[in-house]
């Protein structure tokens, strides 16, 4: 793992992401920050050109757009259209694979992403193509019955080219996940459903993510893989961290300046 490179990409991405949210006056910042490290790790450390990615928690689209921009798939010019009238870069990834390079399916209604990823993974059995599918789902996603349908399906069909990462920040739409609907323990549950499951202690830390991915690589089984990544909503901007309101609120000028200052000083 190239720690320095990832660190630099992260700093750039944070600045871009905050700028995007500020200019657009858009919400879901906390959700974007929660999975930013995972997306950076996937795109810059993990995935090959042939691999496919599905962001099931579509409300973190700005995070995906940012990383696709750093990765070279979304131009600076296109990125500027985020949230504007007549853009492909809406608050949730656009529907159709012909809109944004790197976005195969539009998402935003929870509970679809894992079935999409499982379908893509299954398709290689027919096409004999050779790619892996990575899918980031939220804890809110795991409230949806269809997510568990997809988990059973993936295990039954031995889709070992599927890697699911749960962005487990413990917060969802209107409360703490534990208080809304009990889903823990993810690891034991998903293991029992037939996956190889590994926990990443801190899903906002590249070293922990790297360790988790190394562990699923060690296991050459025919099972699909899942990484339960303990993340922090709003990670990287301390006043946003683990706060439900940053699922919704846009920043004001002062908040934006505070956030940028913190990002710069953390990386100085």
């Amino acid at each position, binding site marked *: 793992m190239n720690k320095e490179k990832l660190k630099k990409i992260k700093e750039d991405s944070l600045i871009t992401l905050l700028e995007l949210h500020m200019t657009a006056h858009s919400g879901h910042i906390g959700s974007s920050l929660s999975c930013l490290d995972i997306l950076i790790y996937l795109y810059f450390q993990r995935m090959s050109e042939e691999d496919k990615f599905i962001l099931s928690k579509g409300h973190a689209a700005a995070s995906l757009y940012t990383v696709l921009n750093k990765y070279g798939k979304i131009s600076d010019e296109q990125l500027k259209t985020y949230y504007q009238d007549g853009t492909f870069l809406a608050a949730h990834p656009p529907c159709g694979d012909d809109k944004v390079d790197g976005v195969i399916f539009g998402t935003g*209604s929870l509970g679809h992403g894992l079935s999409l990823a499982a379908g893509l993974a*299954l398709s290689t059995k027919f096409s004999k193509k050779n790619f892996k599918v990575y899918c980031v789902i939220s804890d809110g996603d795991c409230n949806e019955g*269809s997510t568990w349908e997809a988990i059973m399906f993936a295990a039954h069909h031995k889709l070992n080219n599927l890697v699911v990462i749960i962005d487990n920040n413990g917060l969802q739409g209107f409360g703490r996940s534990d208080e809304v609907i009990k889903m823990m323990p993810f690891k034991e549950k998903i293991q029992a459903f037939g996956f190889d499951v590994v926990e990443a202690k801190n899903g906002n830390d590249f070293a922990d993510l790297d360790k988790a991915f190394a562990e699923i690589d060690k296991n050459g089984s025919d099972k699909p893989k899942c990484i339960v990544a303990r993340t922090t909503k709003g990670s990287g901007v301390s006043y946003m961290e683990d706060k439900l309101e940053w699922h919704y609120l846009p920043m004001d000028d002062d908040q934006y300046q505070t956030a940028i200052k913190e990002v710069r000083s953390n990386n100085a």
Partner: protein
Amino acid sequence: MRKAFSALMEHAGKTDKKTIFFTGDLGFMALEGVRESMGDRFVNTGVSEQNMVTAAAAVASEGFTVFCYSIAPFTVFRPAEQIRLDVCLHNKNVKIVGNGGGYGYGIMGGTHHAIEDIAVLSSFQNMRCYIPFCKEDVEGVFNSMMDRVGPAYLRLGGGQKPEDLELPKYSHTRKLTSGKKITVVALGPVTLNALTAISSLNKDEIELFVITEIPIPNFSSELQESIKKTGKLLVVEEHVQRGGLGENLAELVLESGLSCQYQHLFAKGYPNGLYGSQKYHQKLSSLDPDSIKSKIQEMINEKK
């Protein structure tokens, strides 16, 4: 009709390796041949229609044509959002196949009927619904559906063709009988009831059309001429009043500037709260041959 479909599927399974078949755990005594002909490309996805449809859209995005089979209500309503988003908004080549549309599953009860399916699905982007009239009709409908790349819904039902009826070459709108006084347009299998009604009436009076695709791809000139000539239009469908053949056709008539007397026989749901065979429900909704006959007579006798 299901057998005719299975035979076509079996053939497609052998000849087109880009065809994939998903079933939501149904197809006993019907799809065994399809399973055999398709081998690994036949997948029983379990009783999980939401995952079935979304996974189908994903497989389709890799260049395959994917069928999703169940009974009509289960393959439409449970995964309606999956059809709307993953199939329709993405314009994927997924063919939803629902057996037993309308009151087709009769005494199985309301959970097993699909009388709002076309309203729901035809309102989705890029979707077209296909409703074959009888088993002899399935091949024409199937080919029409396969010629159009994109989302489709095939509503299968137990329709029968009278032995002496010669089906015109396939088109979404076909004239079955000719007459001068009234135009009757029926959707898919219930056309048989209209034909039965007409058989005991004066044949020169009634012009009957069968329609098998919704939204109607275009307003056939033959049908326009007929409405212009008779000035009376009766629509018959085993589907609720809203969002089916009646509204679709009424809009085409208005848009084209035609004027006519209009009556609509449609599925009324469960007016007395009781259950029975498909024929029982058709009678409650005035979709049985006798009720259609009375309606035709009433309209013919009405002054223009």
